[in-house]
């Protein structure tokens, strides 16, 4: 099958990135702010310096992790119709922006602090939209106690979507255990959860090459429970990674290999997704720059490295075509976002996000979901075969003839043409002010009328009991 996916690095360049990553991990290693994880790594063959809190890995150890990591994994939904098999066979899957701290109010347009009601509504909207394949809990539950926010975020999201949930567990092993317990309630036990993990977790190193205590201990706990880990490198060029595209790709690659070694050390065969959200810093402000052209190039390169390692890849974003941008800026951002999605990635993320992912917007989610439904077809595999080349049809039609009602045309019209959904297309073609008005109607209608797949009330209550118990035990 032909694929319109970017090949950016050649074999030699990939070899170099790989060997330089190995050199980094072999000589400099990673800083791990957790004695227990360092001990685990030492047991599995890493060289550990407990004073510096570093671990270095041999190439053999890294190859062993690559050997045990599963090549295919599934992100399960509460509703099996939402199960997502990785690698993605046709087009990438899409996921919402996650854990934003601000929300564009869907009615007033005010950009404000968010709360758990906003989270519930946003997740419900994401559940209703066909263009969204799975979710990150899109908003922080800032009205909840700090030490249990993550647990509320998982539980509120769980009630409002039956799609797969990819959250976080930065607060350590206890927090991870509570999440496992809560999700187990929904599927009917821990063993069932291991068979069908309905949630996975993003675990971010601190670039370059550092792993904080809470996240990494949670990662170990989750790997043992069969919860997929997406070890997301944020290698920001000029800030936490070299300013060059090659440097960003290599740092992200090294961090992914290190994250994988840790997951496989915890539980050989544990599901793991190669993940990167790497881009240069904004050279004018020092903030993250999701509009940088280099973002696409880093996505292309990291996707190829993931493919080389036979790991599912989540290295691209989509959206961030902010409704407030002027047309020319919107054009540049749209081109950039479409290019990034053309990396050999299995997942594109960030839908619904605004303000460099610090915020989310209900209407933006609609725009991104609709745009993705139209754009993802560019990435469909294309059959190049005798059947599709169809020289018999050409002979049939003859010199200067036409194919209008030829059998081949009729058979392949709906199979091979990208036929954009007219309703979607007309929506996203509206001017931004008109779009806002129409999108507002759709958002409110969906929030009023759409019902996510319910969870038994007893289970919901038990989940909140787990959170309350955790609050009492771990409150500061």
């Amino acid at each position, binding site marked *: 099958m032909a694929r319109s996916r970017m090949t950016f690095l050649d074999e030699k360049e990939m070899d170099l990135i790989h060997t330089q990553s190995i050199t980094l991990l072999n000589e400099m290693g990673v800083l791990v702010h957790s004695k227990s994880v360092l001990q685990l790594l030492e047991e599995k063959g890493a060289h550990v310096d407990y004073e510096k809190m570093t671990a270095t890995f041999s190439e053999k150890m890294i190859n062993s992790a690559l050997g045990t990591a599963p090549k295919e994994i599934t992100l399960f939904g509460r509703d099996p119709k939402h199960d997502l098999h990785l690698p993605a066979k046709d087009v990438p899957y899409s996921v919402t922006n996650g854990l934003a701290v601000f929300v564009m109010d869907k009615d007033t347009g005010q950009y404000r602090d968010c709360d758990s009601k906003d989270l519930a509504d946003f997740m419900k909207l994401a559940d209703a939209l066909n263009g969204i394949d799975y979710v990150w809990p899109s908003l922080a539950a800032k009205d909840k106690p700090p030490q249990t926010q993550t647990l509320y975020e998982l539980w509120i999201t769980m009630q409002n979507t039956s799609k797969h949930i990819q959250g976080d567990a930065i607060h350590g092993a206890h927090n991870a255990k509570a999440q496992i317990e809560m999700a187990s309630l929904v599927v009917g036990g821990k063993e069932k959860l291991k068979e069908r993990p309905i949630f996975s977790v993003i675990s971010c190193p601190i670039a370059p090459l550092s792993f904080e205590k809470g996240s990494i201990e949670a990662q170990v706990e989750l790997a043992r429970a069969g919860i997929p880990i997406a070890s997301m490198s944020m290698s920001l060029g000029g800030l936490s990674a070299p300013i060059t595209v090659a440097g960003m790709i290599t740092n992200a690659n090294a961090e992914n290999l290190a994250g994988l070694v840790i997951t496989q050390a915890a539980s050989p065969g544990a599901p793991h997704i190669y993940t990167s959200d790497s881009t240069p810093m904004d050279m004018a*402000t020092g903030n993250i720059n999701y509009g940088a052209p280099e973002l696409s190039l880093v996505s292309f390169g990291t996707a190829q490295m993931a493919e080389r390692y036979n790991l599912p890849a989540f290295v691209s974003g989509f959206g961030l075509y902010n409704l407030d941008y002027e047309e020319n800026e919107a054009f540049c951002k749209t081109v950039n976002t479409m290019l990034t999605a053309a990396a050999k990635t299995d997942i594109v993320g960030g839908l619904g996000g605004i303000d460099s992912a610090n915020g989310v917007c209900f209407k933006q989610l609609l725009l991104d979901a609709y745009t993705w439904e139209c754009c993802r077809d560019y990435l469909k595999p294309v059959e190049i075969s005798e059947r599709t080349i169809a020289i018999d049809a050409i002979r049939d039609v003859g010199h200067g003839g036409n194919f209008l009602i030829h059998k081949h045309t009729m058979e392949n019209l709906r199979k091979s043409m990208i036929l954009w959904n007219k309703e979607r297309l007309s929506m996203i073609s509206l001017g931004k002010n008109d779009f806002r008005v129409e999108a507002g109607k759709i958002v409110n209608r969906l929030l009023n009328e759409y019902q996510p797949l319910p969870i038994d009330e007893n289970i919901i209550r038990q989940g909140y009991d787990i959170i309350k118990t955790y609050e009492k035990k771990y409150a500061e």
Partner: protein
Amino acid sequence: MSIQDIFNAVNNFQDTEIAGIVQSEIDAGTDVSEILNDGLIGAMDEVGKKFGEGLLFVPEMLMAAQTMKAGLEVVRPLLAGTDTKPRGTVVIGTVKGDLHDIGKNLVAMMLEGAGFTIVDLGVDVEPAAFLDAAKENNAELVAMSALLTTTMPSMEECVKMVKNAGLSTKLMIGGAPVTQAYADKISADGYSADAPGAVALARNLIPGV
């Protein structure tokens, strides 16, 4: 050698050569205040202007600041007894429970480049540690950073402690989840969305500078 050579060295990021250039100027008998104000500070003002116009970028501004600092080290021992006042002292850190420091480091570097004396407490800093450092160093400003929403309450705690201690130290906050509204809520003296803004804010907050 001339003052212009010092000025150019900062603008050309000649961080290894500037010490020699400054020393030559001192040896030639040039007034130390002139070296400082026209050569070094004047050069950083030019750098700041170009940065504001989008002609220079953050890494270049920091490199210029590093160059200026290298030149300043040569001049500093000779400044005692002159009228030159330091810009002010800033205690900076990432709050308790948070290990993310890249934004904090950038702000610290830019404040230093702007002439402030920096006391960097690192990451995972207890509120009391900010207070103690502010007292020990007679700091005019405490700057706190957080990336995680769950660590932000520590900022409020620190603001209360500093104000209850009766210090005149100002407090500014920043980080991705932080807002002006939050700064107002906890009675911090200021908030900045980015590092260049933090420098401008520091200049406004520290009196007499």
